[in-house]
């Protein structure tokens, strides 16, 4: 990240010199240029410029991370302000409990952004693409229960499941892909991922790679034409740079780190910062399959969890904008707050370590059978919060005789590293971001966590529709999880969205997802105040 900053500065300096040379060289054309600028301004007043992270490919069936999916694509159903399910492309739906069969009825006259109609075949195609193993989709675990998809007619689709999956309706928010553009093509490499076409409120008109993605409103959007004409995702990855661009007016809105959000609040009286709650947590993930230390001593994950002062991390790295975490579904109605929370207790950690056979060696570090209790916590270098967290956790454990180093890495070596700062969390059904992460061998279980009891509890929670039984199943999951912790949970982090005073329509109380994703769910209702 820092290297990029440096590059950016150099690039900026070069651009400025060139700009100066141009100004002095062609003074005459300047007035013309100005006029052009002016006319451009009136034309683009109804434009929202959003400081975004970078994208290399846009495809909801393959890649889950990313805000832009919800602008370009639309699903059968959608989430509302309170993350409840509401109709979207589908008008109505039915569930036959005996056959585990869902029937969705699409709205009439729907079209994709290229004018072709949206039919049940597209739904079938999208879902089949996700479960096709050769596509290697990030979200395949959520759809693995699908047995068969049938298109009764152009607007009716039947989806038969192998067994009950209560979270299934939630997963039908997935953006529908156009079959006519993608049939028989390799989804992962097709140029569609750079020229995506969906049925969402905005269509992609221009993608200047690494610079900006321009979206124009889609007039035939099923919920009515969006109010803002143009949305530009300007690629500004660094939070400091976003802050500066917000202040200079280059961008209208961006997600900032708490430190930058505070600075924006202090210096911009007209601006607004929405401090929004999320279901997005950070944790130390131990690598149980690839790390010699944690493979041999998996009990360490529980013991070390007592050594992290989470309050201090929330205060230090998040400036208080977050909550201490103890469970992966803490913001969900199925959470159980009676489980072991591993509150900060360094004495207990030392006691447990000694009980487990670890002894302090001559250098003051813990040691057992000749193995020093020493490992590295990695963090993605471009996420300052994670870097700070890794650093603080390492210092806390070091103070207790556990030799921990923190490193900022450009890329994480999931197979070989000891531990890293990980982030997950879904604001939707409790099944999302649990089943696919903590089940043994599940798609997003990157750390080799395997616990038969957890598997059984999550399976049970997925297949019972009875609220009470589900709650029990998740309690069971959380309780057996605390016997063998997969992670050391650290904190839930709020998302700070800063914008100038003109952007209207954001619902401040919506619980957002991982990386603060989800704020754009109602983009079609947003307005730019003139």
């Amino acid at each position, binding site marked *: 990240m*820092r290297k990029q900053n440096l590059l950016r500065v150099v690039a900026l300096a070069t651009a400025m010199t060139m700009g100066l040379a141009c100004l002095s060289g062609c003074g005459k054309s300047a007035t013309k240029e100005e006029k052009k600028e002016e006319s451009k301004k009136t034309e683009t007043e109804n434009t929202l410029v959003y400081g975004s992270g970078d994208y290399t490919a846009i495809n909801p069936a393959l890649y889950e991370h990313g805000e832009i999916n919800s602008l370009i694509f639309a699903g059968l159903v959608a989430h509302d302000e309170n993350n409840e399910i509401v109709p979207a492309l589908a008008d109505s739906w039915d569930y036959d409990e005996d056959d585990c069969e869902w029937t969705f009825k699409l709205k009439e006259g729907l079209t994709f952004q290229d004018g072709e109609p949206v039919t049940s075949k597209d739904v079938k195609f999208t879902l089949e693409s996700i479960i096709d193993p050769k596509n290697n989709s990030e979200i395949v675990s959520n759809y693995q229960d699908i047995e068969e998809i049938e298109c009764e007619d152009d607007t009716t689709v039947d989806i038969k499941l192998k067994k009950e999956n209560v979270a299934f309706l939630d997963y039908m928010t997935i953006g529908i892909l156009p079959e006519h553009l993608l049939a028989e093509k390799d989804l992962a490499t097709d140029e569609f991922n750079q020229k995506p076409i969906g049925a969402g409120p905005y269509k992609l008109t221009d993608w200047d790679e690494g610079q900006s993605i321009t979206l124009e409103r889609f007039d035939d959007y099923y919920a009515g034409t969006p109010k803002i004409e143009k949305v530009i995702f300007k690629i500004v990855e660094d939070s400091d740079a976003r802050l*500066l661009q917000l202040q200079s007016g280059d961008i209208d809105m961006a997600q900032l780190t708490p430190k930058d959000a505070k*600075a924006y609040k202090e210096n911009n009286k007209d601006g607004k910062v929405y401090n929004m709650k999320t279901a997005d947590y950070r944790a130390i993930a131990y690598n149980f399959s690839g790390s010699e230390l944690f493979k041999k001593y998996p009990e360490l994950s529980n013991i070390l969890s007592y050594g992290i002062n989470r309050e201090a991390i929330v205060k*230090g790295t998040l400036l208080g904008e977050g909550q201490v975490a103890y469970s992966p579904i803490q913001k969900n109605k199925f959470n159980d707050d009676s489980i072991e929370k591993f509150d900060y207790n360094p004495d207990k950690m030392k006691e447990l370590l000694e009980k487990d056979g670890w002894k302090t060696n001559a250098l003051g570090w813990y040691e057992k059978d000749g193995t020093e209790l020493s490992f590295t916590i990695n963090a993605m270098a471009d996420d300052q919060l994670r870097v*700070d967290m890794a650093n603080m956790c390492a*210092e806390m454990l070091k103070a207790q005789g556990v030799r921990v*180093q923190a490193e900022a890495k450009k890329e994480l070596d999931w197979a070989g590293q000891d531990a890293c700062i990980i982030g997950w969390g879904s604001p939707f059904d409790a099944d999302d971001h649990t089943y696919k992460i903590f089940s043994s061998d599940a798609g997003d279980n990157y750390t080799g966590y395997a616990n038969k009891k957890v598997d059984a509890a999550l399976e049970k929670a997925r297949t019972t529709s009875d609220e009470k039984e589900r709650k029990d199943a998740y309690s069971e999951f959380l309780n057996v999880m605390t016997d063998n912790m997969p992670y050391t949970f650290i904190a839930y982090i709020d998302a700070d969205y800063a914008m100038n005073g003109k952007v209207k329509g954001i619902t401040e109380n919506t619980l957002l997802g991982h990386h603060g994703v989800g704020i754009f769910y109602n983009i079609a209702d947003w307005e730019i105040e003139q």
Partner: protein
Amino acid sequence: MEKKKKPYLSIVILAIILLSSMFAGLLTPYAPGEMDDAAFALAPCKAHIFGTDTMGRDLYTLVLYGGRASLIIGMLSALIATFIASVYGTLSGIAPKKIDHLLMRITDVLISVPGIIMVIFLQAICGKATYLSLSLIIGATGWMSMSKVVRSEVRRIRNSDFILSAKLMGGGFWYILLRHLFPTFFPSIMFMAVSSIGSAMITESTLSFMGLGLPLTEVSWGSLLSMSQNALLSNQWWLIVIPGLVLVVTLVFLTELGEYLRGNNTRLHSNI
């Protein structure tokens, strides 16, 4: 030529900096990584005379301990650079004309590649950064101009009687280098060696600033400066000014010392 005044001030200040880094443990009540969760990003005050960083660590302690990394890397890589330069320069100096030319053209090529790019490249190959790997890499990329001076000194004295007699009496390469050549040319590269401590420290800082330096948990002046990048927009001036000032003061006095050594060791005053 007028003899320069001895730079007492530089020596005293550098000695203080060196000693205080060495005895950091005695000079501060805090441990290097100790975090005070009641004191995040505190401006300088009585309990924390340099203030604290955003993780609640005492900046004074960090500067003291950070000096260790910076100074060790600075001196070690200067040592390595001097060693390589001496050997390479001597080889080139005593070699026949053609080989001498070839060796010197190689240094020209190496000089023409920007040092920092080579350092980043080598560090990327090396992977995990440690004191030793950083020193080796910085040392191995900073010896070229020094070796040119060594070479010309060696060429000047290689036919002197004392070298010839040492050779005739069967003295080997290393014997002659260490016993006769090194003491003779060292004064003329001493200032370069000293100033390369400074430039090595700058390189280490640059690497840390770019996130290629030591692990996060190992503090150096460079990593403190990179931390200050985050403080830039949040009015925490002490996180920027203090580590920066310490680094600059050290570099200025190192340069002053190097300048003095250079002034005193021109040809006129060299020992033959």
